[in-house]
């Protein structure tokens, strides 16, 4: 009964969300639509980092590289042959790509598959390493991928990047992909495979002693993550319509780690909320980097200010909300209903927010 009710609620919420997306797509200006699209892209980044690290415990810093693969696939498969010719004026593009032009859906899937394939190839040797060694090795692979993309002019147009990529990404695509990602990751971590992954996170030796094949589960987490990172990368390039390879420096991965930690390691809700807040917040702060006039006082614009505020905020969250905004808690209908009825204090299941002190305080006031 209860499960059925929750399913209905979820479907209803999705319908409402679809309505909101349609509303946003039709009423908001392109600037804000772009920001909402970016929220979805960063949500996918954070959710996938959570799968690898928050749930499987593998400290991988390869996100930027996998995203770059997706972004280039997204661009190269959707650019029209004429645009490709215009882009590759130094040296023509590799012949097999010159006349390819695909619809968006197969492009996204290929972007995901290629990222997953390369992700698995990277993971295969790297997963023999643990902890920080895994982190630095994956970061290394990510940088190697980027450096190859910068240097492989006939494939990627090198450091000049790509322009004129069709702007296929809209809110339905981006949030559709984000919801699919959340759905699949959530189902995976709640399954028996997910339990095995969490067991690996908590104690590799004990997990292996219980018959869990470490390698198989780690690579599964890697491949699933890399797939969706690749999709997000393709969404990104078809949103911004240009690719600058510098975007995929390892600092992008650091940002994703920061966002995920802010949201809470082990909370997909947290990842989505933190990713959206981060994106919107950086946009809202944009004015402080341009010139401000207060009365007769003129403060010249200072680029970098937004990131200063972001990093202070990140530091603040880590120092004072050490588990991030959501800790390991997830949004759930049971929590919401309990909250609305004001009797959440009785609910003690680990998946609900009801057992937190925060909710209790809300209740008392």
């Amino acid at each position: 009964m209860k499960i059925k009710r929750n399913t209905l609620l979820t479907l209803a919420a999705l319908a409402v969300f679809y309505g909101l997306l349609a509303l946003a797509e039709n009423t908001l200006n392109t600037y804000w639509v772009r920001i909402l699209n970016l929220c979805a892209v960063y949500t996918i980044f954070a959710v996938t980092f959570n799968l690898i690290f928050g749930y499987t415990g593998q400290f991988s810093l390869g996100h930027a590289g996998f995203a770059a693969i997706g972004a280039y696939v997204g661009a190269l498969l959707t650019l029209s042959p004429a645009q490709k010719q215009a882009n590759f004026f130094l040296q023509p593009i590799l012949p097999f790509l010159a006349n390819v032009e695909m619809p968006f859906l197969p492009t996204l899937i290929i972007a995901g598959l290629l990222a997953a394939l390369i992700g698995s190839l990277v993971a295969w040797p790297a997963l023999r390493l643990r902890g920080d060694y895994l982190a630095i090795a994956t970061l290394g692979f990510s940088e190697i991928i980027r450096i190859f993309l910068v240097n492989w002019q006939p494939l990627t147009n090198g450091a000049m990047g790509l322009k004129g990529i069709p702007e296929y990404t809209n809110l339905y695509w981006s949030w559709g992909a984000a919801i699919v990602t959340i759905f699949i990751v959530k189902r995976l971590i709640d399954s028996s495979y997910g339990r095995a992954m969490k067991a690996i996170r908590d104690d590799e030796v004990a997990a292996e002693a219980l018959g869990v094949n470490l390698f198989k589960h780690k690579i599964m987490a890697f491949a699933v993550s890399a797939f969706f990172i690749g999709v997000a990368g393709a969404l990104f390039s078809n949103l911004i319509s240009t690719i600058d390879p510098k975007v995929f420096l390892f600092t992008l991965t650091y940002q994703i780690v920061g966002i995920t930690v802010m949201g809470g390691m082990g909370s997909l809700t947290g990842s989505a909320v933190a990713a959206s807040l981060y994106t919107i917040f950086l946009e809202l702060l944009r004015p402080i980097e341009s010139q401000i006039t207060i009365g007769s006082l003129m403060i010249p614009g200072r680029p970098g200010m937004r990131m200063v505020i972001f990093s202070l905020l990140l530091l603040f969250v880590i120092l004072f909300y050490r588990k991030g905004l959501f800790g390991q808690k997830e949004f759930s209908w049971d929590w919401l209903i309990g909250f609305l009825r004001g009797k959440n204090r009785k609910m003690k299941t680990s998946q609900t927010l009801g057992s937190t002190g925060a909710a209790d305080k809300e209740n008392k006031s």
Partner: protein
Amino acid sequence: MTFELFLQHLANGISLGSLYALIAIGYTMVYGILRLINFAHGDVVMLGAYAAFYGAALFLLPWYIAFPLAIIITAALGVIIERIAYKPLREYPRINLFTAAVAVSFLIENLGIVIFGGRPFAFTRPEFMDVNLSFGKTSIISYTFIIIITAGILFAILLYLVNKTKAGMAMRALSKDIETTGLVGVNTDRIIMFTFALGSALAAAGGILWATKFPQINPLMGVMPGLKAFIAAVLGGIGNIPGAMIGGFLLGISEILIVAFLPSLSGYRDAFAFAILILLLLFRPNGIMGEVQAEKV
């Protein structure tokens, strides 16, 4: 390639390597004690270079005052970073500490952009570092040697501090076992401060020397050297000070020589470091000098 040219590249490689080594030591010392990849360390390098730049260009101090002063200021900043951002998190999951380092790194870089401006400045070498020395057919500018000599002196001082002084010995004990060392009466906090001061001072020296070698400074100048130096630390076996030095030299020399012998690959220069690192990790997961640590079951 002529022998003279080879020697020139080799000198160049050794000087680059000694810079990596100077920076790598800070990574390795901090990691040894806190198990923290202090990704902000590269940005401390940048702070050192800017402190020296402002001392010389703005306050018109002679280099022999500006440079040591910059090192002292940077060391103090390193300690302040540890106090504010890392110390409160020592008992928490390591991802928090790591993220704190990321946040500090972003903060320093962007504060750098806000305060120093995003455009690069030209760093003026002291005159004695700009002398053209001829050896037969080769000519090498004096800074190459001065970097190597300075780094050598700093290594000697460091090894003395670490091996012969009480603080240094406590530091090494701490990196073996932080809890027990705390129990036998060593003031853990002070030793960690000492470590950060020492590491940041060496990073500052590295940053200043870096600026004399590549005389343009910008707020993001520390990112790549920092990352490379970290790789050098891992190559040498992270936590191991002589290992970090060896790793630094190995990385610097091989980077320069590979590009010298295979100029067509120069675009891939930054990828070499990672490729070497990954290969080494796969065959010797604990680095060249690292100890094998079996997990106790």
